[in-house]
């Protein structure tokens, strides 16, 4: 039922509290959007889930044998690095257990080909990653994770530097993947949040969490926006959308 349960975690960096009272339930096959101001602890939350950062207190319960795939921000690494698209995808097949003379098998390569086909990046396979558009690079990173067939995908701002058509493409892709997988996405792109996600968490040191079964209702949306981020996220699109919803309700 739930893939990941986070119970009352507190996370510190030195003396600085990054997260407190952190409670979150990630339902299987849900499409969870994580919003919140920069520095609010969104990435920290991911790090805790991935086991990269140990919480000071509280617990993180992950369903047994759950495979988690992580797609980092594209700003995290050097795009001039001499690596080709196919090699980035293959990296996803790297064995967890450090092995000497590790080589990618024919099976690994076939899986990588399949994924590249699925993500429509096969024609780019021999390009160096710096030669890709932002949307293409994002697909490559998603591909690196998908080649391992994870149950849960964690994506850290996958659309932050993309133009609006590329943003839509990525969210369409995520929606497609969501049929089989749990998708958790950190994003600032509120207009897509409404169209695509089914639950929402606002992270601003603490976690405000909403997960009603179906789509978001105005009430819980408003609730979410009562969390301190509302001042920071004065996205016109959000307000427009809210008004549209109200408008259509009045019809």
């Amino acid at each position: 039922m739930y893939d990941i349960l986070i119970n009352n975690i507190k996370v510190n960096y030195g003396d600085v509290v990054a997260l407190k009272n952190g409670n979150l339930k990630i339902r299987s096959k849900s499409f969870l959007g994580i919003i919140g101001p920069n520095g609010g602890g969104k990435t920290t939350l991911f790090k805790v889930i991935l086991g990269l950062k140990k919480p000071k207190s509280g617990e993180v319960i992950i369903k047994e044998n759950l495979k988690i795939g992580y797609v980092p921000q594209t700003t995290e690494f050097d795009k001039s690095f001499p690596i080709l698209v196919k090699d980035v995808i293959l990296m996803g097949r790297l064995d967890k257990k450090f092995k000497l003379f590790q080589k990618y098998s024919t099976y690994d390569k076939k899986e990588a080909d399949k994924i590249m086909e699925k993500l429509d990046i096969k024609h780019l396979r021999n390009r160096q990653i710096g030669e890709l558009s932002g949307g293409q690079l994002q697909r490559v990173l998603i591909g690196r994770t998908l080649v391992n067939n994870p149950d849960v995908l964690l994506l850290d701002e996958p659309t932050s530097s993309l133009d609006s058509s590329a943003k839509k493409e990525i969210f369409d892709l995520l929606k497609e993947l969501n049929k089989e997988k749990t998708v958790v996405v950190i994003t600032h792109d509120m207009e897509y949040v409404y169209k695509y996600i089914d639950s929402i968490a606002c992270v601003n040191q603490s976690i405000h969490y909403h997960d009603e079964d179906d789509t978001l209702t105005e009430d819980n949306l408003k609730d979410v926006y009562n969390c301190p981020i509302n001042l920071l996220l004065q996205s016109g699109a959000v307000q427009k959308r809210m008004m549209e919803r109200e408008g259509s309700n009045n019809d």
Partner: protein
Amino acid sequence: MIDALFEYTFIRNAVLASIIASIVCGVIGTIIVEKKLVSMSGGIAHTSFGGIGLGYLLGFEPIIGGLIFAVIAAVSISKIRRETKTKSDTLIGMFWAVGMALGILFISMSSGYQPDMTSYLFGDILTVSSVYIKIMVVLSIIILGIIFTAFNYWKAYLFDEEYLKVLGIDIKILEYILFIIISLSIVILIKVVGIILAIALLTIPPAISKLFTKDLKKIMGLSIIFGIILSFLGLYISYNFNIPSGSTIILVSVVSFLVVSFLKK
């Protein structure tokens, strides 16, 4: 020079030394450039001078002292940076200066004959002994063995450390291993081009290669080839004009880089 190659051991050793150095530089130099560890490597190289001085003072092989100092510097910089959050740039600067200062101090304290340090600072490939060639071969095999038995992991480490962390691989260990390998490489280079010029031989061949390819392994391969060509050319010129070999190799390399990058434009 071709006749001399067969006639004199010292020429043969010089040629062997430049081939080995080029192979190591091609691989490690590419890593240093891609991981942006150039100043780190400069720091390690200069710290090793302290060990060379200590070798003279206490009467053991200076290059062993250099090796020990280089490894200590590499591991310490990485450890101190992690524990005190001092910027590695600052630490590198300190080690750099302290290494040189200790080297000069130790040498001045050693009694009697004061050795000529220019061969360590600027290299003297024509004095490379057969024993040193053997040391170079062993160190090179260790270095290349470590890199190529786990190449896919190194590639992932260089490209995206975080990804390996998520896989659950301890990247701290990889970092220590890499720094130690860099130290070994630098020690290999000391006799060939010297402490001061080592960085050039590590960085110029990859810089030229990057103008031709965007694939990590190919950059390494091309760097080896360019390294061999450039050091032979430098050696040939220095032999014929009777000028210092290390400086000549470096200057030939830099000029080649400028010419190639101009032509590739």
